[in-house]
Each structure stands twice: as C-alpha cells, then as structure tokens.
C-alpha cells in the first residue's frame, strides 16, 4: 500500500527511510514540537522548497536539462497569486484565478523555451537561460505598476488563512489554533500531494524514457522515442510544478517581490539542494531541502557562537563572522560537489549490500552503483 503511494520507488535503504520518516514527522508536527514563528517559517519554507527542488530535479536529474530559468516559473506562480490577490482583494477566488493564470503563462513560456532548447547546444541553453532569467527579473521590477517593482507586493489571504482567524480560543497542546496553523497544514498537504505526484511521474514509463534521453539522446531517438516531445513535456511539467511552488510561497508569505521569488540566489539554492540531496532521485529534493533550509536559517546563529568562541583569534573570528555566512555556504557548495557527487540519497543507497552473491570466485567485484558521472549538459 505504502509502496503504491511511493510508486514502487521505495527509499531502498534503511537509513534513508528513517531520515525520510523523521523529516515527514517533523514537518507534520512542527507547530507542536517547536513553538515559535521562526520554526514554523522554516518548516513552511522547507515544504515550498521540497516542491520547487523536486520540480527542478525532474528537469535536471531526470531529463538532463540545465536551466537557470527555473525560478522564472517559481516567480510566475508567486506573482500570479500576488497580483490577483492585490487586484481582486483577498479571497479564494483570487487565489484560483492567480494560480490558473500563472499556470497558463508558465505553460506557454515553458513550451517556447522547450522548443527553443532543441535548436541550440545544451551548454548554450544553460547560459542563455541565465541571461533570460536575469532579463525576466529586471522586467518584473520594471513593470512596477503591475508587480510593485523592486518593492514588491504585500497582500492579504482569505480570512481562514490569516493570523487573525482563530479556530478556537483555547490553545491545543499549547498551540493557538489560528489561521497561520491552518495555512501551514494546507501547505503541508499540497506539498505532499505534489511530491508524490512527481515521484509517480518519474517512475512511470515516461520517466524511464527521460532517463534514457539524459543518458544518450541520440540512441533514444534511434530506438524510436520522439525526444522532442519527451523533453518538451518534461520541461512543461517541471515548470508547472515550480509555478505551484511559487503560489505556495505567495500564500505563505503574503508578500512577493523580484528578489523573493526570482533572484538568482534562489536558483543557486535549488541547485545546491538538488545536488546535496542527490540528483535524479526526487527523494533527494526532500532531504536536500530539509538540510539546506535549516542550515541556511541557522547558519548565522551558529557562526555567531563560533566566532564568539574564537574571539581571541581576530583572523579566524573575521572568517567566522556571521556576516560571512555566505562564505561557508559557498564552501558547503564546493565540498558537497566534491564529496557527495551523488548526494545524500546516492551515498546512502550505495551502502546497500550487493544484490547478488559475486559470481566467479576469481573476479570478485564488490558491485556498487558507481557515482553518476558524465555530462548532463552536453549530449
């Protein structure tokens, strides 16, 4: 039964399974386990990034397309909800209209980009998307009448999802049952459903063909798959999921601006999450998001403690200054590509015992999945 939910793609490793269950349980119970606004914010951000990173994994890990324009779709989702809620006033109607419009825009753009990607070399494509994403962000801030420019948009959500709304006056297990809580659980359910849907897609026959295309596009075409169609469908799907993640972001923050949903930094975060978690595994997106968002949110606090501890050594203290948290994030970045080329999931899965006893006595290969290598960009 559970296996069906997971589309017969179970974690395949005990530790991994435990980690995933822990993550699931923590996210489910965050409001009760760790009280406070910050914890809930962090948990919600994890939920959003799980969806966003998984959608990117669909593109990167499964289809082998490196696009830096992914946050563009994230932004479209966020702006869809933001603009609709600003113009139409708070309400479910605005949410629905905003999301629908965003999905349509994303669909069209993703289709265009998907078709364009076939004309140019893969590596060009990555760099072009980089330029595109930058231009799109500028565009968003230029159309200030519409998007609120650099300052962004602040808006309200339907009453039930607002902090002001109280389900009951008496707190439950010490947690006040307000609109924030309802909003969080709404996000939780949506994220879970989207995540399982993506897991299903990559484990469908379609998903396998994507992997084949990633591995050897030429041969996939030669055995009869219309690579163009598969690629484009995959780009569109991934864009739509990203759009939904963007909508979630808007619902949660009740704010959106160019830096919040379109910045290159988010793109980097997503890349890093997918890499840390393990490309081409979907589960990696969940674990990566959990690790990364927590690290990002508490890194500065941690560094503060560390730099106070080494206050005697000014040189080290300067490096450990909380202001230089990006330095450490960058280091994390490099080290994870260095030491975790297959990500956490890849590492854990590689630890599983050999599937079969070694065949001939002379050649005794300890079979283990070699790290994913080769070039996703080219091919």
């Amino acid at each position: 039964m559970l296996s069906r939910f997971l589309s017969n793609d179970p974690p395949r490793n005990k530790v991994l399974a435990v980690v995933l269950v822990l993550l699931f349980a923590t996210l489910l119970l965050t409001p009760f386990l760790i009280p406070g606004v910050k914890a809930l914010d962090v948990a919600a951000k994890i939920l959003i990034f799980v969806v966003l990173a998984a959608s990117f994994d669909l593109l990167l890990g499964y289809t082998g397309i490196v696009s830096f324009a992914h946050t563009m779709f994230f932004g479209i989702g966020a702006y869809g909800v933001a603009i609709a809620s600003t113009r139409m006033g708070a309400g479910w109607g605005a949410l629905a209209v905003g999301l629908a419009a965003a999905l349509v825009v994303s669909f069209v753009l993703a289709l265009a980009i998907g078709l364009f990607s076939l004309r140019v070399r893969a590596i060009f494509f990555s760099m072009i998307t980089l330029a595109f994403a930058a231009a799109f962000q500028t565009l968003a801030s230029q159309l200030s009448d519409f998007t609120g420019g650099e300052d962004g948009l602040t808006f309200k959500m339907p009453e039930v999802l607002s902090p002001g709304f109280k389900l009951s006056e008496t707190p439950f297990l010490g947690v006040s049952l307000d609109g924030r809580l309802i909003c969080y659980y709404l996000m939780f359910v949506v994220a879970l459903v989207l995540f399982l849907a993506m897991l299903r897609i990559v484990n469908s026959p379609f998903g396998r063909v994507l992997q084949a295309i990633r591995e050897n596009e030429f041969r996939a075409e030669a055995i009869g798959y219309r690579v163009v169609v598969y690629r484009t469908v995959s780009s569109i799907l991934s864009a739509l999921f990203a759009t939904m993640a963007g909508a979630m972001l808007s619902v949660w923050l009740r704010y959106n601006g160019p830096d919040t949903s379109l910045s290159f930094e988010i793109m980097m975060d997503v890349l890093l999450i997918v890499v840390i978690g393990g490309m081409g595994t979907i589960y990696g997106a969940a674990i990566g998001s959990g690790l990364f968002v927590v690290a990002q949110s508490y890194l500065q606090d941690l560094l503060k403690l560390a730099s106070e501890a080494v206050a005697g050594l000014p040189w080290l203290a300067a490096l450990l200054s909380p202001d230089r948290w990006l330095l450490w994030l960058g280091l994390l970045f490099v080290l994870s590509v260095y030491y975790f080329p297959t990500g956490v999931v890849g590492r854990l899965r590689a630890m599983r015992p050999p599937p079969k006893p070694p065949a001939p006595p002379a050649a005794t290969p300890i079979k283990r999945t070699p790290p994913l290598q080769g070039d996703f960009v080219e091919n």
Partner: protein
Amino acid sequence: MKNLDFDWMPLALVPMLAILVLPMIGSGSTWVTLTVAGLAMGMIIFIIASGLTLVFGLMDVLNFGHGVFIALGAFVATSVLGSMGDYTGSSSLWVNLMAVLPAMVVAMLVAGAIGLAFERFIVRPVYGNHLKQILITMGGMIIGEELIKVIWGPLQIPLPLPEGMRGSIYLGDAAIEKYRLLAVIVGLAVFGGLLWTLTRTKIGLLIRAGVQDREMVESLGYRIKTLFIGVFVVGSALAGLGGVMWGLYQQNVIPQMGAQVNVLIFIVLIIGGLGSTTGALVGALLVGLMANYTGFLAPKAALFSNIALMMAILLWRPQGVYALNK
C-alpha cells in the same frame, strides 16, 4: 588550423551594423561618438571575456567563477594604485602608465596565482563534466567574493583614473574618451597574443586534444595536467587584467562586480561560438555597439538589446558565429 577559407561573414557584421544604423541616427558626429565608444567598449568587454574564452575554448571548462578573478584584479589595482599616488596624480600619460602597468602586472600575477589554487581545488575534480563545473565554480565564486569582502571590506572602493587618462579627445562635436583608446590598444594586444599562441603553436592543438581525450594525450607523452594548469592560470591572469581595465573604466570597484559582468561575458561567448577567440571579439564588438545604438535610439529596449542580439545570432548560426568543430 582550418582557416584555409576564413569565414569573413561574422567579422563583416560589425561594419554592417554600424552602417545600417547611420541613417537612423542622422547626425554624423553623434554616430561617430556612439560607434567609437561602442567599439572601444567592445574591446574592454573582450578583455574581460578573453580569459574565459580561453579556458572554455581550450579546456572546455565552464567557469562561472570567472568573475571573481575580474573583481580580484580590480581590487588588487586599488591597492597598487592607491600606493602610487605620485604617479597617478601626474597629468603626464607616461608617468601614469608607470603606475598602471605595474598595477596590471601585479593584478595578473595575483589573479594567476589564485587561479592556480582555484584550478587545483575547485576545477580539477570536475574536468569533463559541465554540470559539476557550473556548480562547483559557482561555489568558488561565492567563496571568492566573500574573501574579497574579508580582505578589502564590503564597501565600494574608488579606483580613480590617473590624471592623464581622463578627459576626451574631440573630433568636431564628437567626443571620445581617452581611456577608451587605451582600452583598444590593450584589447588588440590581448587578441593578437591569443590568436598567435592558439594558431601558430602546438600548445593550442595539444590542449584542444586534451579536452577530447585526456588519457590519449598523456599516452602520447604530454603532461596535460601541467598544460591545463598553465591555461587556467593564463585565463585567470587575463581576467585579472580585465578587472583592472574594467575597474578603471568604472572608477570604482565593488565585491559583486564579478557577478555583475558574468551574464554579459556569457552573452559575448555565446555569440562568438564558445571558445573561439575571434568569435569572442566579434561578439564583444557587437554587444558594445548594440548597447550604444539602442541606448540612443530606443533606451527602453536597451535592456534587452544583448539578449535580442544573441537570439538573432543564434537563429542565424545556432552554434554562434564561429562554431568550433563540434
């Protein structure tokens, strides 16, 4: 090389574009100002992009961290020039060069040295894998930028142009900044040097072969590792030089300047055909001109002029103007 029948079309694009816009601009002096400024700007862009072209074209390494070396070069220049106030303060160009040249040399040395470490610790493990290159060099970029902040502080630092290089030369109503002329000279020198090394020596060949099959080149008896390091160091040094040129042009430097020019450089490289030196030059000149022409004719569109140019070129030649044999 294969330039038996050299393809002149892309090079011809540059004058073609300039002639095409002449009637649109109308005033001759304005056209001269814009064209000369655009070409010179193109040269500056070429200088900052040349290192990356080299590294990408020869080693197939997509260094997203290239910008760090540009910023580094610029910051080193602030330190060097800052300590040579007597030379920069003079209004004689030659005395100024006494300060600027050492600044360039030091910047190139420092950038080259850091490039050595960058190659060793960041790039070497990911040769042959573009995705990992992108990821790890991005990480390197973040680290580099933060380290610059640790050393020089997060503030912008002024990098004033030496006295003698300020001001403009006037041709009737048309004004041409002196500094841009200097940039043209430096740019041509870089271009000539690169072209010579790549086409007239075996080194270029060897490295191109090394990208395709490293093991085979080693089996033929060449120390490809050393060569790769060398190329990377030269590429970084060129970025350092570009940083000095760019910093002096902007007259102030910020730690983020590397990241800021990254997209621009990429556009130039794509137009040029990723790794072709001549292509990068053509790309840079086109970008420089386009920015000025659209900036004058339709400023609203200027923002997207680079991207539009890139798309147009790719529709014409999907591999860029001078595609390497791939």
